[in-house]
């Protein structure tokens, strides 16, 4: 049996915005190959956790290590290039571009040449671009979005936009994928589709997935481990079935303090 190692570990992380404490002394480890869910009511600090992982926020105190590197010393793009990719709670696609161009931008880190070669559209550029296109086409196949390839983002329905944002993140060919409420605003059928894709990403592609949801249902079925957040604090960590039986978790969800 392979030894499970941590890809990301939080040590006593606190995050303050002026008077607001978005995270309070949060510690946990995320193991390689897990499907790690973070749940909690709105404002619990879930998105802040993701923003800390990918370096958009830096912890006020405490530390986060990503593949055993201290996140404080890394820019967001450097963290991305370690193989960490993400989607956003409110879709952050490039709206004036086609779905394909968005996904190609996701493949950015696999494309290797500089501006001068680009001006000349040299042989190297053509080869690298072909590689980027191949990666993008694999993603398009995987997510079954062939028909939207050349559509501009603004012309696409919300559910498809969410899927394209997922595609853009996958085109990074990440080791760890962070998903911020991927099923938010979707109907049951779309939610099932997304859940199926997430399982496939985890199992077929072998990617470590960190999944945020404010509602417990989807997560309970697919997660291997869950952390429950409330008011910036970690209420619970363990397997999903136990979370549903935990009194503190039940209280948080019922609004009892």
């Amino acid at each position: 049996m392979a030894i499970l190692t941590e890809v990301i570990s939080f040590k006593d992380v606190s995050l303050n915005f002026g008077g607001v404490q978005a995270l309070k002394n949060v510690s946990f480890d995320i193991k390689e190959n897990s499907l790690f869910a973070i749940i909690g009511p709105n404002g619990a600090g879930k998105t802040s956790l993701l923003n800390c992982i990918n370096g958009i926020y830096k912890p006020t105190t405490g530390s986060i290590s990503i593949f055993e590197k201290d996140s404080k010393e890394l820019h967001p793009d450097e963290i991305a290039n370690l193989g960490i990719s993400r989607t956003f709670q409110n879709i952050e696609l490039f709206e004036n571009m086609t779905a394909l161009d968005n996904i190609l931008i996701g493949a950015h880190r696999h494309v290797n040449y500089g501006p001068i070669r680009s001006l000349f559209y040299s042989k190297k550029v053509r080869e690298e671009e072909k590689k980027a296109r191949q990666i993008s086409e694999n993603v398009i196949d995987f997510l079954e979005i062939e028909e939207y390839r050349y559509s501009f983002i603004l012309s696409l329905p919300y559910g498809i936009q969410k899927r394209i944002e997922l595609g853009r993140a996958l085109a990074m060919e990440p080791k760890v994928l962070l998903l911020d409420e991927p099923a938010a605003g979707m109907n049951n059928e779309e939610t099932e589709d997304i859940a199926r894709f997430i399982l496939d990403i985890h199992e077929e592609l072998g990617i470590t997935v960190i999944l945020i949801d404010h509602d417990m249902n989807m997560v309970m079925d697919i997660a291997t481990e869950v952390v429950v957040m409330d008011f910036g604090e970690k209420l619970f960590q363990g397997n999903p079935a136990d979370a549903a039986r935990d009194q503190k978790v039940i209280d948080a969800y019922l609004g009892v303090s």
Partner: protein
Amino acid sequence: MRKRPDLYTNYKSESAIFSTLTQKVWFVLLLFISLLLPFYLSNYWMLLVTTSLLIAIASWGLNIVSGMAGQINLAHGVFVGIGAYTSAVIGGVATSSVIGFELDMIFWLPISGAVAALIGVIISPVSARLKGLNLGLVTLAIVFIGSHFFSNLKFITGGAGLGRKAAKLKFLGFDLDSGISIGNLILEKNDVIYYFSLILCILLGIGAKNLTRTKIGRAFSAIRDRDIAAEALGINLFKFKMYAFALSSFYAGIAGSIIFIISGGVEPGTFSLLYSITFIAIVIIGGVGTVLGPLYGAFFFTMLPGIIQVILHALGVADTGFFLNAGEIERIVFGFFIIFFLVFEPRGIWGIWFRLRNYFKAWPFSY
């Protein structure tokens, strides 16, 4: 049977510069006409065409940094100036007041682009720290710093009000300042400048197009539209903003190195704030972020005085009898077009062309 124009059967044809046969035919036709132009147009119009080509090159530069990468730059004209003085020093004649090395164009052309690009690289970190209006303000300051240097580095520029001669036109050892005869074909200096400008315009235009169809252009657009998402996708903002400024200034430097050879001299006062803003207007009028837009805008801007002259002559009010002179009318008309395009057609002349083309494609079923 006509093939479906949007159906690409392989990756190569999809990413080609000219995706249809019609476009290729048009390009060849235009190229052919361009080559013959000096034999049919008067000197006056040839000068306007040459200027348009060079202004187009500089405008492509601005379009790279502002249109593609979204970084406001009010100092683009300064980089044109840097190109102009670099070529004047390397390729110009020394006098008692200014230095000059009379070197070949093969040296001063690339070096002018490189020096401008280098200065672009040096100021680009500013754009990594500042955004939007604040960046605009800093670039505004660069216009004034540039003007100060241009006026005071007299051994390079000749000083305010005086200026200096531009570079000499010497290419691969041939002295082209007094024209050249090939067989019984006589090319005057201005024809030579025209052909150089045409070649550079085609090459750099293709370069601009190449940027848009590769990773570099995509990264620029990503930074322009959503910098946080771009960073989360592994795009190094600092590095790519530097690339944008470097490429942009390179284009400006190349254009600047040649454009003043037409009139023969450069004067520091040229590189005012208004000069920089002209490029912004050209890009807006032509179509921000499009490949052909800056070319259209440059021709429109440069040809406008000529066209207004023609109209005034036709109306018989060219010299007297009208309360505005030609220069004033030019500025008013140009200002009007800037507002018109900003309000009604943000995609500029390119946008109008795009709509016309689609209209005629659908003809007679247009509605």
